[in-house]
Each structure stands twice: as C-alpha cells, then as structure tokens.
C-alpha cells in the first residue's frame, strides 16, 4: 500500500493501522458475498487501494440515529468501520464537528465538487414541510437539491428505504421513502432497523471497486445481502422441518433452541443477511438470542400484523365477520325457508285431484 496516494482508501487504512492480512480478509469476505472467484480478491484489493476517497454526503431526516449508531458504535473499529470512516464523509450532522452555517457550507462545497455519493437515513415528511427541517430547509427540499448531482443515492435503514416507523399507520407526517421522491437515478435500499454495518460498507466497497452499483432485487436491495430469507439461512431451520417448536419464551423448546415460528418469527418472509453475517462482529443475531425475527428489513413491517403471532395466524379477530355471516345466513335462510314453505302450501291448496274419469275422458 506504500505507493498509494494519500487520498486513496488504501493509504488511509494503512495509516489507521489495518494490517495487510486484515485488509485482504475483508476483500475475501466481499468476494465471497458477491459470489466472485478467489482470483477476484486481488482485483478487489488493488481497486480498493487505488480508489480515491469517495465524497459522501449523509443526510438524516425523520430517524432515530439508530442507523448511524449501528454503523459507528456497534463494535470496536473493524475494517468495515474504517472503510466507512475513510470515505470522505463531507457532511453528516451527527458526526461532523462543524455546526450551523459551517456545516451547511461543507455540504454545498461537496456538492460543488460533484461525483459524490448521497447516503440518506430517515424518511421524508410530505404532510407539512415544518415537521422536519435542517437549518430551516425542509427535508424534501434538501433531498431533492442534494440528490440532483449525486452519482448514486443509498437509502440506509427501513425509514429511508420504505418510510419505516414514521410511515406506520396512520402516518401522521405523511412520511415517504427516498425512492418515492427520486426517480431519475438509482436508489439503493439498505433496509433494516438498523441495517447491518457490513452491508452498507459492502455496498460502498462495491461502488469503489467496480464503479457500478450492485445488482438489486425488486425492492431495490443489493441481492448479495438480501437474496435469501432469514428462515432459509437460520441455524434453527432443521427444528422447523422436524416439527420442533418453542411454545413460549421460557419453555423446554426455547431452552433447547428450537424454532421460534409459533412465537411469531417473521424469518420466512424477511430477506436480510442477519443469519449469515450476524451482528457485533459475528457474535449473534436476534433469533440466536432467543427472539423471533420482526421482519425489520421489509416494507411496512410495523403494520404487518402482530409481532408475536405465528405467520399463518389471522392478523385480526374474525369474530365480527363470523357473527355477521352467521346472522345474515340465518336471517336470509329463514326468510327463504318461509317463502318456500308458503309456495309449497299454495301449490298444495291449488292442487286439483285427478280422477280415473278425467283420464278416460275423451275431448
């Protein structure tokens, strides 16, 4: 890494004390994630080392800062963390030292330089511009202005990707996702509440290495990280197939680590990398810790039925529907029966007996 420009990622990593072995390990992980052959590791390493530090503008709108916390504080600095730090993070109002006009000036400077990546966390309120503003500028205006010349837009977290919790019914602020507003350039969704650190750094590394965006699924998520469901990659999956389930959070099944499907796990319909990359430097993930998946990387997960009911259970009580159906059925059925009875009685009354003479009578 000696020959790299001081502004290159490789030089920055070296200065931060990342060993060659650690760096190549990260490159190998990326190559595996993108299903590239082993020979691609060197190419990724070379590209990353030479890559100029990409300018990144990070906008935070209606969010809880959990996404930033996830990326910066979930574990001690790793290569993933350093990759993130060594991009030129020109604007991030939680992390930057500058404030007020100086902060906004930094954003404008970065925009003037052009070819920057725009990262957004948080949803954008359309109900009233005053619901969320930065330096007196509404979120929607700041997003549209900053996105105009961005090379690509990355929506980090479920709020930015799909509206998230602010958009939960009844959506009081009229919150929408980034892709709802930006239609003229690619928006990469990196959902999760919060998203996994290596996923966001993986997307950045892909952009730095190949100069292109990763392949996305129908919801705009990188397929390499969101291509398979939690359920299919879950280490408890064999218990599901064997019919072994935890019935409560403290029964024998729970202690034995059996499947959490009956306790409301949404793993079967949730696409994310939690079960493979895990959290806190690969220590664990929610299911491993004994709690079912909430489905936080799926659109509108907050409004998709109770968290603690099995996925096949009804999301609401059926009592009203059943009561109305039985009531209507009995009322209309009884009315129909009375009508039929009356018709039969009338037919009986109108019946004219036929005698032998009638049959023999010649006309």
């Amino acid at each position, binding site marked *: 890494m000696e020959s790299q420009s001081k502004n290159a990622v490789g030089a920055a990593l070296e200065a931060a004390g990342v060993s060659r072995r650690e760096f190549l390990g990260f490159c190998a992980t990326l190559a595996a994630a993108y299903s590239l052959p082993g020979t691609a590791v060197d190419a990724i390493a070379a590209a990353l080392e030479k890559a100029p530090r990409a300018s990144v503008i990070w906008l935070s709108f209606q969010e809880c800062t959990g996404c930033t916390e996830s990326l910066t504080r979930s574990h001690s600095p790793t290569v993933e963390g350093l990759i993130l730090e060594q991009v030129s993070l020109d604007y991030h109002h939680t992390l930057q030292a500058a404030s007020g006009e100086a902060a906004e000036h930094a954003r404008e400077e970065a925009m003037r330089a052009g070819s920057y990546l725009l990262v957004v966390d948080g949803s954008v309120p359309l109900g009233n511009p005053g619901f969320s503003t930065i330096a007196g500028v509404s979120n929607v205006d700041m997003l549209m202005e900053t996105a105009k010349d961005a090379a690509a837009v990355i929506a980090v977290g479920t709020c930015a990707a799909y509206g998230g919790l602010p958009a939960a019914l009844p959506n009081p602020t009229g919150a929408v996702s980034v892709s709802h507003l930006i239609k003229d350039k690619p928006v990469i969704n990196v959902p999760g509440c919060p998203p996994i650190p290596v996923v966001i750094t993986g997307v950045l590394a892909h952009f730095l290495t190949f100069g292109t965006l990763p392949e996305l699924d*129908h*919801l705009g998520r990188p397929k390499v990280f969101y291509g398979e*469901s939690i359920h*299919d990659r879950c280490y408890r999956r064999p218990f*599901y*197939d*064997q*019919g072994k*389930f935890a019935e409560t959070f403290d029964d024998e099944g729970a202690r034995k680590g059996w499947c959490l*499907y*009956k306790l409301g796990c949404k793993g*079967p*319909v949730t696409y994310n990398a939690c079960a493979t990359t895990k959290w806190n430097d690969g220590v664990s993930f929610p299911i491993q810790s004994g709690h079912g998946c909430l*489905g936080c990387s*799926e*659109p*509108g*997960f907050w*409004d*998709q*039925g109770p968290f603690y*009911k*099995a*996925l*096949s*259970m*009804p*999301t*609401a009580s*059926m009592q*009203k*529907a*059943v009561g*109305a*159906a*039985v009531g*209507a*059925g*009995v009322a*209309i*059925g*009884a009315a*129909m*029966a009375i009508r*039929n*009875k009356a018709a*039969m009685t009338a037919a009986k009354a109108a019946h004219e007996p036929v005698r032998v003479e009638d049959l023999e009578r010649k006309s």
Partner: protein
Amino acid sequence: MSALELLTWARGSGLALALGLCLFGIILRLFEILSLGRKTDLAPARTVTPGSGWRTLLSRSLPPPGMLSRAPLTYVGGYVFHIGIAIAVFFFVPHIELIRGLLGFGWRGLPNLFVDIASIAAILAMLAVLAGRLTDPVKRFLSGKGDWLAWGLTFLPLATGYAAFHHLAENYTLLLALHILSVELLLVVLPFSKLFHVVGLFLARWYNGEIAGRKGVAS
C-alpha cells in the same frame, strides 16, 4: 401493494371476507336443503334397522364389491388425494397454528417430510384422476363445468402451497400470499359448488341410509 402487504391483507381482511362468505353460504344451503322437507312416510317400516343412516356414512366411503378392480384409478386416486389433502391441511404446523388462531385450540403437527410426501401424493393423485376424467369418454361426457371448477379450486391451494414450501419462485412472500388467497377463493366458492359435498355428504348419506333401511335395504 407489496407482496408483504398482500400477505397481510390475505391474513386479515381477505380471510375475514372469505370465512364470512363461506359460513354464510353453508348456512344458506343448509336452510335450503332442510326446508325442502319430506312428506311423512305413512307406510310402516319394512325392517327395523336402527343406525342404518349412520352406517351408510361409512359404507359409502368403501368401494362396492368388485368396483375397486374395475375402476382402480377412481378409488385409489380418490383415496390418496383426499387423505393427502387431509394430512397437509390438518397436520402441517403452520396450518394448525391458523386453526389455533381461529378456534383457540390446536394439536401436534407432523414433521415437514411427512406432510411433504402426503402433498406430493395428493398432487400426483389429482393429476391422475384428471387424466382419467379427460381420457375416459364416459367420465368426460358426464363432467360439467362444475367438475372442472371443483378440481381447479382444489388443486390450486395444493400447487401454490407446494411451490411456496419448496421456494419454486424467488419471491416466497408472494407465493405464500397467493397460496392463502387460493384457499380463500376455495372457501368462497365451496358452498355454491360441488365442493359443498364436504358438508352435504353427511346429510345425504345419512338420509339415504335411513330411508333405504325403512324400505328394507338396510346397510
């Protein structure tokens, strides 16, 4: 509407609508059948055969002597697909959880492998009986739109359920939603089609058994 939202609708409003229409239809049909009534049989019973109707409920499920060898596809295919469907519906854990969610009680399920085998057997048997119906000129002549509709509505939940379980398409969530919607379509049409036999056969067999018993042909 995303696939997950479609699934949530199918588990909520869709299910309520389908269950409501199914119950409404069943009650209506029962009123219709029972209110038709029968004239009182003034003739004394030829033989006193208590329980003839109840026995007929079972005996009509068994092939008459010689019929199994004459029409093996009809009987074996019929048994396999009915039993296979029953296993898939009542012994797959997610289905039991649905019943628990509706009625408040459930039971132990079978391992997925058994349910999978039963489902595959049911699918193959249904395809075989369809082929038999299409190739046999007599069965084909006797088949009407209602028969094809009943076959299709029964096969659809099996096929979508199998596809969802085995992830035969990339979007599992959508497959699961389509599976539940196909079951809901079945529920809505059930009371107003030949599928009503799941309720009506008990009434019909009991009555036929009783009246035949009174006339001297006890089962």
